[in-house]
C-alpha cells in the first residue's frame, strides 16, 4: 500500500471545529466514525444517544470518559494485585483487555495503547510481569496529560531500563541503546541527531539502574565529565538530555505526525503546512496531549472523507469493536489468546519500533484469522471461547417491531456494524445469503425461534467479514 501526500488541504479549514450543516450533517456515519477512533466503536445505545446530543457534547464525553473512572480504576488495580505473584504474562494481557473492554474512559485506554506502542517495551526481554504492569500504569497516568513528565518518568522506569539496557550502562562501559531510541523513536525521529550525539548522550545515563525494584543511581558508575550533545557542552545527566530533546521543536512535530497517523489516517501523510499548526500548539502547550487529541477529534478534517475509513483496525481494535458493538462479555484470557495470532500481542511488541500498523495488519493469514475470530465470537460453533456474543439477544434488546422477519433485523445489524454504508454488490450478496438461509431445510427439532437465532448469527458473521468492517 502506498501513502499519499496531500498538498491541497487548507490547514485553517482542516483544524477548525466541525459544525454540522445541511451539507455536512451529523449522522450515524459521523457518530460511528468518531466512536471507532475514540472508543471501541459505537454500540446501539451510544449511536442513538450521540445522534441526539450532537458532536460537541459527544466529543466532550469521549475526552473525559463517563463518570466512575476513579472507582473503576481502584477496582481493576485490585484485580491486578495477584499478577505480580503469578508472574503470568497471559493474565497481565487479559487484565488489560478487561480494562479496555470495561473502562468508562475508552479513549484513555486507546491512548495507553498508543504510548505502549510508542515506547514499545516487551516482556520478552524484561521478563517481569510486575514491572510491565507498573509501566502500563505509569503510561496510563500520563497518557492524556503532558508528554514531558511521561518521557522523564519512562526514562527511569525499571521495565524500560531493562528493555533498552540502561541498567548495564556504566561510565567505563557505556551502552548506547537507550540514548539511541530516546532520540530516534521516542522524541525526535531519524536524522535529527548525529551518531556522536548518541554516543555522548549515552554517557549521561551511565549509572542509572534499579535497586529494590525501583529507580536508583549508582554514584560510582556516573560519568560526570563533559559531554557534547546537539552542539552544547556540559556535564549533562540523563534528565538534562531528555529536556534537551523536549526543547527541540522537531520533537513536537515528530509526535504530532505520529498522533496524526494514529487518529486521522493511515494513508494521508500531512505536509509540513498541515502539521505545523498542530506542532506549534503542542509545543506551546508544553506537550499537552489531551489538547492536541481534542483538536484533531473536533476538526473538520477528522470528519471529512479524507479520514473516513482511512485506517485499518488493529487486532485489538478489531476484536474489542466486535465485542463492544455486540454487547458481549467474553473471557479475556481466551480472548487474548485469539488476538495474539492476529498480530498484536500486548506487552510483546515485535521490536523497539512497535507495531507498524496500517496495511501491515492485514495479510492472507491475519485476514483469514479475523474472519474466523468473528465466527468464534458470534456463533456457537467455536469451542475456544465459551462466553460469546449473542446477536439475537442484542436484536431483542434494541429492536422494536417485528423480530421474526430477517430483512429488517439484517438492516439493523448492518446499521450498527457498518451504518448501512455498503455498495450495491454487497447488498445483493446479503440478499442472496438471506434467501439461502430462508430456503434451506433445517433439522426437524429446530423451532422457529432457533432457526431465526441461527440466521441472525450467520448474517452477523457475514457482515463482519466484509472488507469495510476491517476499516477504522
Amino acid at each position, binding site marked *: 500500500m502506498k501513502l499519499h501526500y496531500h498538498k491541497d488541504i487548507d490547514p485553517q479549514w482542516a483544524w477548525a471545529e466541525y459544525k454540522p450543516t445541511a451539507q*455536512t450533517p451529523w449522522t450515524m456515519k459521523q457518530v460511528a466514525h468518531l466512536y471507532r477512533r475514540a472508543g471501541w466503536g459505537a454500540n446501539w445505545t451510544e449511536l442513538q444517544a450521540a445522534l441526539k446530543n450532537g458532536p460537541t457534547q459527544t466529543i466532550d464525553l469521549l475526552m473525559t470518559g463517563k463518570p466512575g473512572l476513579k472507582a473503576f480504576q481502584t477496582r481493576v488495580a485490585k484485580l491486578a494485585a495477584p499478577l505480580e505473584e503469578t508472574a503470568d504474562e497471559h493474565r497481565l494481557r487479559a487484565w488489560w483487555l478487561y480494562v479496555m473492554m470495561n473502562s468508562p474512559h475508552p479513549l484513555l485506554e486507546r491512548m495507553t495503547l498508543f504510548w505502549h506502542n510508542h515506547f514499545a517495551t516487551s516482556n520478552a526481554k524484561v521478563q517481569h510481569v510486575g514491572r510491565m504492569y507498573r509501566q502500563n500504569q505509569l503510561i496510563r497516568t500520563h497518557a492524556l496529560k503532558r508528554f514531558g513528565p511521561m518521557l522523564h518518568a519512562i526514562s527511569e522506569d525499571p521495565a524500560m531500563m531493562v528493555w533498552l539496557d540502561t541498567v548495564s550502562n556504566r561510565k567505563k562501559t557505556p551502552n548506547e541503546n537507550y540514548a539511541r531510541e530516546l532520540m530516534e523513536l521516542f522524541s525526535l525521529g531519524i536524522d535529527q541527531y548525529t551518531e556522536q550525539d548518541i554516543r555522548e548522550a549515552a554517557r549521561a545515563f551511565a549509572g542509572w539502574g534499579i535497586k529494590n525494584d525501583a529507580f536508583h543511581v549508582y554514584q560510582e558508575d556516573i560519568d560526570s565529565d563533559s559531554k557534547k550533545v546537539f552542539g552544547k557542552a556540559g556535564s549533562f545527566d540523563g534528565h538534562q538530555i531528555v529536556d534537551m530533546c523536549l526543547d527541540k521543536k522537531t520533537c513536537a512535530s515528530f509526535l504530532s505526525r505520529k498522533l496524526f497517523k494514529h487518529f486521522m489516517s493511515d494513508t494521508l501523510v500531512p505536509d509540513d503546512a498541515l502539521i505545523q499548526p498542530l506542532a506549534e500548539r503542542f509545543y506551546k502547550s508544553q506537550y499537552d496531549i489531551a489538547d492536541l487529541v481534542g483538536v484533531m477529534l473536533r476538526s473538520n478534517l477528522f470528519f471529512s472523507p479524507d479520514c473516513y475509513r482511512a485506517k485499518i483496525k488493529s487486532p485489538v481494535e478489531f476484536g474489542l469493536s466486535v465485542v463492544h458493538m455486540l454487547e458481549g462479555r467474553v473471557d479475556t484470557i481466551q480472548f487474548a489468546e485469539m488476538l495474539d495470532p492476529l498480530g498484536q500481542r500486548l506487552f510483546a511488541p515485535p521490536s523497539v519500533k512497535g507495531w507498524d500498523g496500517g496495511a501491515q495488519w492485514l495479510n*492472507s493469514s491475519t485476514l*483469514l484469522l479475523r*474472519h474466523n475470530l468473528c465466527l468464534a465470537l458470534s456463533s456457537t460453533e467455536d469451542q475456544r471461547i465459551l462466553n460469546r456474543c449473542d446477536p439475537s439477544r442484542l436484536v431483542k434488546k434494541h429492536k422494536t417491531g417485528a423480530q421474526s422477519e430477517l430483512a429488517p433485523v439484517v438492516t439493523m445489524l448492518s446499521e450498527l456494524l457498518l451504518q448501512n454504508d455498503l455498495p450495491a454488490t454487497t447488498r445483493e450478496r446479503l440478499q442472496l445469503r438471506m434467501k439461502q438461509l430462508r430456503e434451506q431445510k433445517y433439522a426437524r427439532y429446530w423451532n422457529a425461534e432457533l432457526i431465526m437465532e441461527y440466521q441472525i448469527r450467520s448474517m452477523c458473521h457475514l457482515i463482519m467479514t466484509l472488507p469495510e468492517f476491517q476499516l477504522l
Partner: protein
Amino acid sequence: MFLHRRSFLKSTFAGTGLVAYGLSSPQFLTRAAAATPLLDAKGSRDTILVVVQLTGGNDGLNTVIPFNDPLYAASRPTLKQKPSDIKKLNKDIGLHPVLQGLAELFNEQALTIVQGVGYPNPNQSHFTSMDIWHSARLDGPYSDGWLGRSLGHFKQGSGSGYHLGNQGEASPLALTGSIKCPTITSLADMELRASGHTNLDRKHQREIIEKSGQASVTESSSLLDYVQRTSAGTFSTVKKLREIAKNYDSKVPYPANRLAERLKLAAQLIDVEIGARIFYVEQDGYDTHADQAGNHSRLLTELSSALTAFYRDLKARGHAKRVVILTFSEFGRRVKENGSQGTDHGAAAPVFLLGESVNGGLVGAHPRLDKLDDGNLIHHTDFRSIYSTILDQWLGVPSNKIVGQFQNLQLLKKT
C-alpha cells in the same frame, strides 16, 4: 462532509486520487506478467531464492572469525571464541564453534561466504539500515523492496513470493511491490471456518464470504480497495493450499526451532511446486547489547541446524540445485565489546549463500581489525553487488532495473 456515496467518491478522486493504488490492481498484475521479458535468459525458469534475515544486527565478527588476528581476542575479552573450538575454514578464518553444520556444507562447497559486506556511510539505526537492505536504496523513501520490484519481471505465472512468518507478522519491505506476497504460518491455519449446520450451508457461507474480495473497485475508497485485494488474494491462496498435498514427510529430521519450522514449510511449498520463486523467513534476536555469548550461540545453533536440515531435505528431494539460500543482517556489531558482555551497533558483516549451485568458499578478505571506521569494520563489498549477481545470474531479472549498476560477483557456478 459525508454526502451520499457519489459525492464522496467524487471528492475522494478529486482530492487525493486513487492513483497510488491503481498500479497494483489485478489487471496490472496480468499485464506485467504478459509483458515480462527474458523468458529464455539464464535463471529465468524455476530457480528459487530463499532469504533468511537475521534481525537485530548479527555479530559478524563472532560468526566468521579471524582467529589468528591478535586484535580479535584483544577486542573481545569476554566474547572471544577459543581458537581450538573454532570451525576452521582455512589457516586464518573460522566459523563460530556452534556452526558445525555450516562448516560441513562449506567443505562440500555448498556454502559461499562473502566477507566484509556493507554499504557506504552505514546507518546504525536498525530500521533505516534494514530499510536500506530491503529497498536496495541508500536514501528513502523506502516504499518498495528489491524483491518486490523484481516480481513483475519474472516469467508469466511464476512471479510470486511468500513470506513465511508468525501469524500476524508483517510481510517485509523487501517483498513489497506491485504484486502482493502473502504471509503463511502453516498449511493448517489457512482455512476459512464456517458455521453452517449442513455441508451445503457451509459451502454457501464460504462462497459468499469469498466473494467479498470481488466488489467492484470503482465503488471503493483507496484503503477499501486495498482490503478487497487482500481478501481476493487470501481466498485464492487458501484454495491453492487446500489443494496441495498435506502428507509431506521431510527426508531428514528438522530441529525443533521456529526457523526450522518455517524452512520446512518452504521445503513443502517448493516440493509441491506452488510456483513461487521467492521465500522469505526471519530469525529475530540478534540485537545483543548485553550478555551476548549465550544468546548468540543459541541463535547461531538454530541457524546452522535449521539451514543444514533444509539443505539436506531439499537435496534428498532433488531441489538443491535450483534453490539458493541467502542470509543477511542489517549490520554487524562494534568490534570492541561493550561493558555489558555485549556489543553495540556496528557496520560490515558477512553474507552467506547456500545451495548446490553456489561456488563455495570465501569471497573477499576479512575486513581489517586494525583499520576501523569509528570502531566499526569497513566494508569492501556493496550488498547490492550480491543482489545484482542473484538477479542477473539466478532469478533472470535485469539487475540494473532493480538495484542500479553493480558488478556481478563470482558467487554461483557457471551452468
